[in-house]
């Protein structure tokens, strides 16, 4: 592939992501205007349920990585603990409840279920490990 074709392809990829990216930026700006920063801190601070709920929410979320990272960043701004947000972000990228029927059809029911379930568990493990290593 030459430089022109590679650039065109990259530009098209970015263009495809753009509506969602701009949409989430508008939503984040609106949310930050109406909801004060650290609003959720009192609800999730020190809660063990937080990472679990985060991973569950991430498992059903779909969208491009850019939207995932921006949205997750805003969750921190709103006061969600980093552990919860990391579990959410990882589950968003690795677990696919919405895509599960297609994954079962192509890769087999047992594989798809085992993969998604283990991805869910490992998202939590990776989130705990990341926060632990950052605290050292």
């Amino acid at each position: 592939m030459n430089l022109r074709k590679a650039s065109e392809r990259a530009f098209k990829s970015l263009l495809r992501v753009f509506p969602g990216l701009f949409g989430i930026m508008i939503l984040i700006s609106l949310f930050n205007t109406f909801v004060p920063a650290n609003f959720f801190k009192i609800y999730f601070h020190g809660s063990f349920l937080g990472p679990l709920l985060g991973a569950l929410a991430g498992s059903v979320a779909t969208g491009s990585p850019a939207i995932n990272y921006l949205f997750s960043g805003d969750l921190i701004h709103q006061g969600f603990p980093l552990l919860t947000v990391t579990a959410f972000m990882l589950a968003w990228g690795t677990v696919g409840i919405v895509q599960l029927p297609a994954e079962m059809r192509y890769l087999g029911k047992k594989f798809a279920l085992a993969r998604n379930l283990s991805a869910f568990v490992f998202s939590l493990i990776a989130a705990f490990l990341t926060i632990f290593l950052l605290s050292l």
Partner: protein
Amino acid sequence: MSSKKHRNQRGKRKFSYFIKGSNLLLGFSLLLFLETMLLDYGKAHETAERLYYLVKAMVPFLLIVFVLMVLVNLFVRTTKLVKYMGENSGIKGWLIALVAGNISVGNIYFWFPMLKEMKDKGVRPGLIASFLFNRGIKLTWLPVMVLVFGKKYVLVLFVVTTVVSILQGIIIDLLMKKDKPSTTAPEIK
């Protein structure tokens, strides 16, 4: 008659393009913003200001994302790379699963048929699982992640995800091993 049918199909395709997720999200956000503008101009102005600063912070990082995407397009063929994850690929197989997962682009639905073909050809399910886990962290979008979370966090998360994806792959291999059909001929009684 057939051209009318063709036009209808093209119209349906265009319509389905516009109602896809990301456009819906943009439409919904714009509607909310318009409503805010009508109800409380001051809040809408504040939102617009926040949006301006967010876009301004984002643009340089999007340029880096663009350059990374061009480089990946120029030098890596992920679809070809993935085909090297053969049954006895060993450490090379794991490395390819990790790298290909990180740099793979496109919708996951595009990858399923190809992964099925590879699984049928004998590629270990653990490598496929590891590849899919590593799609969670996209190398080309890392600049945006750094903008949001900072370098230290991204580095630690990247290393942890890599290690964890290998562990997941090993577990999936063990789980699926029991299902693997026997290669020896069945005993005839």
